């Protein structure tokens, strides 16, 4: 990456540095006060132990699991026929800021730290509105790093293990990640081809074997193009033409003429034609063609305006959701 590709936080000097330090101090003091006064970010849970016993079979292959507290479980325990027992703890999270906590409730440090981290990182990202700064940069780097790691691990298990290895070495996958895999699930030789293509693709990293990767890349590009062509043709071309021209005379459920749906259909048809004329550059846009093209521009502007309005709505919702989190889950103000 060249020097020009990176953005740098402006150097905080003089008043800027003092401003940031004062702001940070106020924020830290505010957080400490919020932590003590509002119990900010505290997450309380009610732990519950789940105990199950296996009846019948062997310890390695039990036949049936029942809850220890059930009649069958207690009877088996009394009779000494329990093959193997297992227990673990589950927790039920209480609503944020719940006043009446049950006696069994305990504070979950893991979840509390998680809420605090999320709140601090949210504020760090929001600080970009004031200007580029080290807090924003730190949060941004954390997001990028965590996302990359998550994608890598997730892709390995869902792509390589669950799609490739399971079809080549089902026994290995059964003993490793998928004990529920059917015993009669056998390997499929066809998956040798994607294995070879994958290895060829990795050859791109070799200093002198980069050309090998072009073969699987050609396969991917060709297959994807063919794959998408048909789908686009049907849903984005033929179906759209049909939808535009076949419903001008709309009828309602009682099979009588529906005025407004018909008007709507005619407006859509005229708008489509006007937009098509605007993008038709083989004729000079003068006279009737010019006027129609101007109508097309108008339709496009309305479309862009609607898209912008919906985008604004989406962005405001994101901000609302973050405030909701800060006020409800972190500060317990709601």
């Amino acid at each position, binding site marked *: 990456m060249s020097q020009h590709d990176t953005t740098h936080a402006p150097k905080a000097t003089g008043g800027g540095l003092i401003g940031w330090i004062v702001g940070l101090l106020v924020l830290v003091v505010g957080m400490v006060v919020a932590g003590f006064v509002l119990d900010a970010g505290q997450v309380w849970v009610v732990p519950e132990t789940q105990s199950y016993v296996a009846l019948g079979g062997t310890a390695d292959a039990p036949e049936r699991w029942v809850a220890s507290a059930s009649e069958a479980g207690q009877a088996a325990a009394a009779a000494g026929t329990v093959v193997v027992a297992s227990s673990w703890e589950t927790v039920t999270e209480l609503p944020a800021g719940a006043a009446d906590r049950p006696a069994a409730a305990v504070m979950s440090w893991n979840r509390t730290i998680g809420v605090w981290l999320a709140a601090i990182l949210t504020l760090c990202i929001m600080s970009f509105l004031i200007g580029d700064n080290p807090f924003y940069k730190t949060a941004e780097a954390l997001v990028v790093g965590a996302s990359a790691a998550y994608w890598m691990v997730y892709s390995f298990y869902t792509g390589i293990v669950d799609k490739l290895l399971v079809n080549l070495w089902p026994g290995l996958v059964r003993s490793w990640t998928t004990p529920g895999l059917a015993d009669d699930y056998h390997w499929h030789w066809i998956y040798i081809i994607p294995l070879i293509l994958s290895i060829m693709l990795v050859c791109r990293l070799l200093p002198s074997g980069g050309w090998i990767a072009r073969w699987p890349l050609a396969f991917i590009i060709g297959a994807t193009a063919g794959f998408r062509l048909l789908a686009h043709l049907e849903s984005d071309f033929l179906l759209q033409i049909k939808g535009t021209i076949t419903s001008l005379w709309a009828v309602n459920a009682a099979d009588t003429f529906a005025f407004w749906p018909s008007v709507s259909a005619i407006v859509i048809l005229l708008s489509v034609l006007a937009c098509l004329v605007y993008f038709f550059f083989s004729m000079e846009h003068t006279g009737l063609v010019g006027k129609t093209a101007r109508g097309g521009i108008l339709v496009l502007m309305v*479309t862009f305006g609607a898209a912008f309005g919906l985008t604004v709505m989406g962005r405001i*919702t994101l901000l609302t959701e973050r405030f909701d989190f800060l006020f409800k889950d972190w500060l317990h103000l709601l």
Partner: protein
Amino acid sequence: MLNLLRNLDRRLIFLIMGLAVAIPVLMRFEPPSEVTMMDQNVFDAVQDLPDGSRVLLSFDFDPGSQGELLPMAMSFTRHLAEKKHKIYFMCLWPLGEPFIEDAMKLLQEEYPHLKYGTDYVSFGYKPGGEAVIKNIIVDWKQLFITDSRKQDLKEIPMTMKLKSAKSMDLLISISAGDPGTKQWIQYAATPAKLPMVSGCTGVQAPLFYPYIPDPLSGLLAAIKGAAGYEKIMSEHYPDLKTPAFVKSRFSSTAAQQRMGPQFVAHLLMVALILLGNVIFFIDRSQGNA
């Protein structure tokens, strides 16, 4: 004054916008809102199915879009549960899977009579985007050998006889981008003639309107669509208005609560746009523009 407005610090506008959103959130301000025909169409698509129908619910979004899409995802889950439909969860986005877990937790807490495997099942995430859809339309078990809990599909009552996605009675995609609603339309709803409805982000909505009414029966556009859907839901199922549902972790009125900040922020936006134009025209009349 004019000079002050002309050189207004953009950070001041950010602050005003922040307050315009934060104050309604704190006040829990909810403006009156109308249900649109589109919201009603989506509701009817789920409601008109016979009880116990098979519905594929795909969570094709990630935390970046949860503000817009999670409320409608939870509304769909509640509606399907109320109608006792069989819910088949899956996602085409890797970060969609935690939301499926949240939806299943909601089912465990609010509808404890529904059981995993007989009333709902999760297939989790599979990489491949449109290729996943293309595969499950032909042969489900060719691609999904197990569910997301790594259980053999032949052992799960809901999936024992499942051949392909063609056996679904309705597709629902909650989409934040690609792969998402567009791909479900192209590779499932159109070729297999499957009924489909969708919920999507505001950015995507204009792209999907051309697909209505065929193959999309209805579309919930952004938080406004989700709020409309919640309103219809609470009219049909009054229990959803009770504090137990309203104050739950996934509130049954989450989208409606977010319409207050929308209302105030939009008013502010309109005011700022008008103000900017007034300054522009004044400048132009004075020969400054």
